[in-house]
């Protein structure tokens, strides 16, 4: 994930962030390490936000509580929100 793979990197970050289940006390130190190694802020933002907002791993639990439609819609909107945040962070930090 370096400067040359903007969109691919962001998509990858969103994808990984949505799939895995990592608690904050592991995710943020990891994000800081990535940052030190030259990963841009917007990719970090996409990763940490989708990590918290989207959880395909916990989808079955969500479905049992609120039904398929709501659970899927909530996760998709979560993904969109993560994307918006990542792009905004990228612009504000001057990475685009």
């Amino acid at each position: 994930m370096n400067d040359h793979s903007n969109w691919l990197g962001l998509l990858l970050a969103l994808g990984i962030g949505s799939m895995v289940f990592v608690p904050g006390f592991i995710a943020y130190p990891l994000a800081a390490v990535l940052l030190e190694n030259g990963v841009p802020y917007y990719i970090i933002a996409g990763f940490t936000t989708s990590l918290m907002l989207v959880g395909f791993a916990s989808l079955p639990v969500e479905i049992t509580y609120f039904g398929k439609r709501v659970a899927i819609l909530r996760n998709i909107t979560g993904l969109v929100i993560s994307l918006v945040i990542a792009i905004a962070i990228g612009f504000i930090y001057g990475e685009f």
Partner: protein
Amino acid sequence: MKKHNDLLSYLIPALVIGFSLGARFSGFELGEKLLSNLGQYLKTLLLLLPPVFILIGLFEVWVPRKTIDKHFGSSHGIGAWFWLMLLASTIVGGLYVSLPIAYTLYQKGTRLRLVYGFLGFSTICRIPMTFFEASFLGLRFTLIRYAIALPLVIISAILIERFTGE
């Protein structure tokens, strides 16, 4: 829950435990990490969930439906979002804690958009998580994320309610 789900919910943990134990004994370094992570998650879940369910139970018994309906029902004001955000920010853990709370709120007559909003808030503004984020990625990062995420969560909650009906 359906039968094959039951089978899966035993099969997957069994595979994970089997793999990490196997890796542990064959000296594979990743295995030790897997096992210690697994232990940590299990400990968190076991320590966290019982008190959460006890508190939810007390909430169900002690808080009258009328109170919830008055503040979070169909005639809720803008303040309702704020209070739910405060409530959500105190949540420790993840969706496995906020989902049952959200469901209880719903059963007590909270309007669905507020319930979805609560779920969203609970993922983006948990206090311990915010501190972690601000200390590792900078306060500016956190503030920007909040400024963008909060309105979007409210909008998406309203949209989800619209699309799925009451």
